[in-house]
């Protein structure tokens, strides 16, 4: 078992490496930072351009550039941005921002998604089921930036009616905010609510659909009947035997949902001016910055692949039938 998980981990590391290499090559081929430089008015002297080219290792073939960069990465140095600032300095902060936003959103999403799915399944074709279905379809068919904007407007209205800015939705903190740690924590929470809700709603809608159908499969099962036949009340049988079994197929979903969300969160970050990884990717592409793009790709690859690994672990933990 441990051996299996270790082998999988090695596989994933290789995959992350390959993904990053591809992103790096693609970025190197398409980006033209020197061209940007040359279009400046007045154009910089040729010596400056040559120096820049040398700094960016553009005079080397792409694989060599990649390994040079990778060599740094292994030692914790992700290279420099196009504006010549060390990436490593910014990386930690941005990862923190992204994780803060998503971990919370996804946890809430999973908890309430599962709950909503279970309730819908148990009360199939009742009002609550129809309501949950409607909710999910509306949320899932709304693009994130629309949903975010609507929530923003809602928050603004709420603030107006209260007459105080309770819910804040620009950035992580109020710039220049000073106060005790309690006050600054509160300030952060005020900033966190609307963006988290934006993410959580989508997640709830998504998970609840899957949980509903996996729970419905279990509802008609013989073992649930056996559990009741031995004296468990329906409710207890449903949760102890039914839900526990219905969660198995969800494990993969939970894990991958997390990995992909980091990429999908780009819009949310931009919308609420959170300078996380998603935001950075857009910045990286628009400034034609290979190193930043590759760094974000590496981060996403690591997230996705770690999720895959986590899914394996969860699966093995949840389902005794998986013997590896």
């Amino acid at each position, binding site marked *: 078992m441990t051996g299996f998980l270790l082998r999988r981990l090695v596989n994933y590391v290789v995959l992350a490496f390959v993904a990053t290499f591809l992103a790096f090559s693609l970025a190197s081929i398409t980006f033209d930072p020197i061209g940007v430089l040359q279009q400046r008015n007045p154009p910089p002297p040729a010596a400056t351009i040559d120096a820049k080219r040398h700094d960016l290792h553009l005079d080397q073939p792409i694989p060599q550039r990649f390994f040079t960069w990778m060599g740094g990465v292994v030692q914790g140095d992700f290279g420099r941005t196009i504006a010549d600032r060390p990436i490593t300095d910014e990386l930690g902060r941005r990862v923190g921002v992204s994780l803060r936003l998503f971990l919370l959103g996804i946890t809430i999403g999973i908890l309430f998604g599962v709950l909503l799915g279970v309730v819908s399944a148990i009360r199939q074709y009742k009002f609550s089921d129809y309501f949950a279905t409607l909710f999910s379809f509306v949320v899932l068919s709304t693009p994130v930036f629309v949903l975010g904007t609507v929530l923003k407007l809602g928050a603004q209205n709420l603030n107006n009616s209260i007459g105080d800015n309770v819910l804040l939705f620009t950035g992580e903190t109020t710039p220049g905010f000073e106060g005790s740690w309690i006050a600054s924590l509160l300030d952060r929470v005020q900033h966190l609510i609307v963006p988290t809700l934006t993410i959580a709603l989508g997640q709830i809608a998504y998970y609840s659909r899957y949980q509903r159908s996996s729970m419905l499969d279990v509802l008609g*099962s*013989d*073992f649930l*009947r*056996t*559990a*009741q*036949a*031995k*004296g*468990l*009340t*329906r*409710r*207890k049988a449903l949760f102890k*035997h039914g839900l*526990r*079994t219905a969660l*198995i197929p969800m494990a993969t979903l939970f894990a991958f949902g997390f990995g992909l969300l980091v990429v999908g969160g780009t819009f949310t970050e931009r919308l609420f001016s959170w300078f996380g990884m998603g935001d950075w990717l857009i910045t990286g592409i628009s400034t034609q910055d290979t190193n930043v793009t590759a760094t974000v790709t590496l981060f996403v690859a690591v997230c996705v692949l770690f999720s895959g690994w986590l899914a394996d672990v969860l699966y093995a933990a*949840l*389902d*005794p*039938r998986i013997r590896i």
Partner: protein
Amino acid sequence: MSSAELLFDSADRPAPTGPVLEVHDLAVSFPSESGRVRAVRGLSYQVAPGEVLGIVGESGSGKSVSSLAVMGLLPPQARITGSIKFQGRELIGLNDGELSKIRGKRVSMVFQDPLSALTPVYTVGDQIAEALLVHRGAKISKQAAAKRAVELLDLVGIPNAVERAKAFPHEFSGGMRQRAVIAMAIANDPDLIIADEPTTALDVTVQAQVLEVLKTAQEVTGAGIVIITHDLGVVAGFADRLMVMYAGKAVETGQVDEIYARPRMPYTLGLLGSIPRLDVGEKQPLVPIVGQPPSLTELPPGCPFAPRCPMEVDACRTAEPELVDVDGSAEHRAACIRTDELAASDTEGAEAAVEIFGAEVVEEAPIAKVPREERKIVLQLSGLVKHYPVTKGVVLKRRVGTVHAVDGISFDIREGETLGVVGESGCGKTTTLMEILNLQKPMGGTLSVLGQDAADLNAKSRKAIRRDLQVVFQDPMAALDPRLPIFDVIAEPMQVHDLDKEHIANRVPELLDLVGLRREHASRYPAEFSGGQRQRIGIARALALNPKLLVLDEPVSALDVSIQAGVINLLEELKAKLGLSYLFVAHDLSVVRHIADRVAVMYLGKIVEIGQVDEVFDAPRHPYTQALLSAIPIPDPVKERQRERILVTGDLPSPANPPSGCRFRTRCFLHATLSEDKQRTCVEVEPPRQEQGEDHEAACHFAQIRQVL
């Protein structure tokens, strides 16, 4: 089993008085698109303490629904009326919380499909312990419950129970899971156990073991048992009283012996006449009950059996007959207006059934008179081998073992002959069949069909042989394409072989006639037919190209007995009429005895005994055949109670790792009684197939005749 008395100390309980269960005028209906399905329509019965009541009836007759009603486990949309009293207390109207205090403690239930009856994510031990914990709450510690779970597993015959309690359900075989479910059912020493087809999904050898366990369970708990089954053999030796259900009602009730000997309702009579008998040598006619059970949404007035009843008269259609006393005894009751006439007739039981339903023994084909040696060989297998690799890993598969699915089997089938192949599931029956149908050079040994070696065939000659070699599968629904009308289904093989349109258009109605369906049915879709009719369609399709050899894989095992009889009769008629040869694979030995001329008994990829049907059944030489035959219940209460069962222990070993020497030795009862020397022979030397008499061979070093029927 000596711990049993300690486990179940019933001294503190008051001596039971009155019936444990009293069901009165129970009716259950479900909403459906075509109106209310009246699944149970006024059912009344009682179970006395310690009594075993058998409930039999066709699929859909309301057996399961009525017992789920007792457990309070029907889905919420079911409408339930009437009264269900358990030890004097009314159960209908109790809420889930109140019922849950009774369920599993006073009344428990064993379900049909053991494979899905246990929650996959908890260990077997934990699930049994849960039954104790949920009812005794703080009065029993977790450790004590776990210990007790192990004792219960031991009681139901799980070897090495301490270890096995920690296993998950998927690590148990079907039989072991059913034992675990029974352990759960008796955990709280209930007063009533309801077993809904507890052995239907199991192999006969395992069925015999599980029935034995149920008997033990009854002895130690003293509980009343309601056993539901469609197998009249199972209840014959086990039940005290019997209730026959038809269309949601009881149509006959009484003592088991009485009903088997003197059935007083035509339906019961028909049922008894429709089962082939394992213990009867000479050909007996099988009684088919024509038609199907009525739809439960719109029952016409009158006797629900009237459309299928050979004794039906106008009066039957006016009012539904009530259960009335037979021969002036309230012990035996039947719902038929002509009960008295049945009583007055000179014949009884199966004989009466044959007379009343007008069944006949199917004439043998002329070719059957020709001595076997002089007939042509249509199929010959010699030393046929088929192994499957066992692989591990998802991306990089590596071979970790070999399943010896078929390991060198030889037999031949001559013109106009039926060879039955029997054996437990997993013994290689279907693999053998698939190898034959493949018509490729086998992995080992030779296969020749109609005189042609499969190894020498090219694409063209293979296709030509396929015309003469056709197949009928078990599941009539799965074998037919639901989107095609019957005409196309039957025509398909002819189209594949490029027969012209006109020929096909003439042939299909002919085939429908042949299998007893109406010509007008050609335009209908498979879903509009009943199971028996679908099987007939499958047979018509197989016959389309005038084959010489039909391969039948469990062709009747998905059908109810009354329907099964009709299909068996049809197969016999066709064989005689068209001079066909059959390879008939089945697990039901009674059916094989009835239809086959010769029989081959398979065990773990080998043939252990082969020969003339009557020879093998009346004088079996191989211990496995003896055990197999002995495991099969006979629908005759008197005989059945006197029979001594040879129980095969344990489950089939894994075919990936068959035992050395004789493959049956791990379960062989004879082996255990042998001297050490002889035992060594079994372990070291694989027994060859030896002549045991005329056309009778067995593969056992110490073969000896033992009569078991």
